[in-house]
């Protein structure tokens, strides 16, 4: 398949991902190479104590400095600023954000790109809640909380997307910049606010069903504080958008 004249910058924020990083990069290279699209991977490591950056340097030696770009920061500064930091150095006109913990499979990236090109969408968002999308590794309680939170946010925020808290997405570069600039929340609710802001700006959103495989290495995080934070942000967005 030939390149389509666009370049895709894949942003990979990491914190203590020494085990997952080599695998996710190997998978990205495998599927991007097969698709033929022009791309680069930008690793934004927030000073991981486990040596993620050294792993990234080794991978850069294998895959080349034009494919693997390292833009580390000295401390953990949050997801929104990690994206801004990554965008500043991105040479592509499209940005893809993906989690480095292997819960998102890079095999879906070519699907994102094809769907975006088909309708010239501003954003393509991966969804676990529609079509063949789904999750692996969640028990009943986790599914119930997830579905409940999703239902509530659909009712209160009426976004144009079925998966608000997912973080596997493709954005036009300027669209991502604008959405981040209008976001006020931090942490994982940030992803939800991004799509709400996108709706406010009138951006078009398309969706690709994805399978979400919950962390194979390391532990997944969903505790009381996350739920409280989610509820607070949901109400804030409900009242202000």
């Amino acid at each position, binding site marked *: 398949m030939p390149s389509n004249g666009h370049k895709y910058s894949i942003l990979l924020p990491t914190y203590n991902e020494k085990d997952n990083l080599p695998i996710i990069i190997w998978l990205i290279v495998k599927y991007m190479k097969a698709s033929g699209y022009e791309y680069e991977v930008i690793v934004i490591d927030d000073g991981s104590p486990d040596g993620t950056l050294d792993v990234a340097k080794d991978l850069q030696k294998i895959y080349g400095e034009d494919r693997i770009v390292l833009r580390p920061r000295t401390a953990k500064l949050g997801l929104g600023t990690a994206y801004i930091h990554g965008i500043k150095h991105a040479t592509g006109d499209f940005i893809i954000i993906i989690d480095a913990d292997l819960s998102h499979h890079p095999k879906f990236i070519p699907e994102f790109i094809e769907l975006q090109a088909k309708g010239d969408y501003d954003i393509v968002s991966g969804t676990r809640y529609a079509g063949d999308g789904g999750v692996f590794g969640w028990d009943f309680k986790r*599914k119930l909380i997830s579905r409940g939170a999703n239902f509530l946010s659909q009712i*209160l925020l009426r976004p144009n997307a079925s998966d608000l808290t997912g973080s596997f997405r493709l954005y036009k570069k300027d669209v991502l910049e604008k959405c981040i600039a209008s976001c006020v929340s931090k942490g994982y609710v940030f992803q939800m606010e991004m799509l709400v802001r996108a709706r406010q700006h009138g951006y078009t959103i398309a969706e690709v069903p994805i399978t979400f495989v919950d962390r194979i290495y390391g532990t997944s995080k969903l505790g009381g504080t996350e739920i409280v934070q989610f509820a607070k942000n949901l109400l804030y967005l409900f009242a202000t958008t």
Partner: protein
Amino acid sequence: MTNLQRWLFYAALFAVPYLSLVLGTVQTQLTTKYFLFVQFLPVLLLGLFGIYSVWTVLYRTFTFNDCPEAAKELQAEILEARKDLIAKGFRFRD
């Protein structure tokens, strides 16, 4: 209009005729005959919405796709990746 304003707007659209009926400002034969029903209308509507919500969330929870193939595929690819990366001279730190 924010979402909150939109909800308040709809609530007002409902509250004005509702209160005028309940407080007796407006009286019709029909609403007088079913006055008890009219009085409890908000509770009834809330109850119905509650049932709809619980049913929807439970239905979606039970039909939430499990993806065992996706996990299996990933596990296989992880092994393949490790082999290939080691062959390329990469050293895993585990």
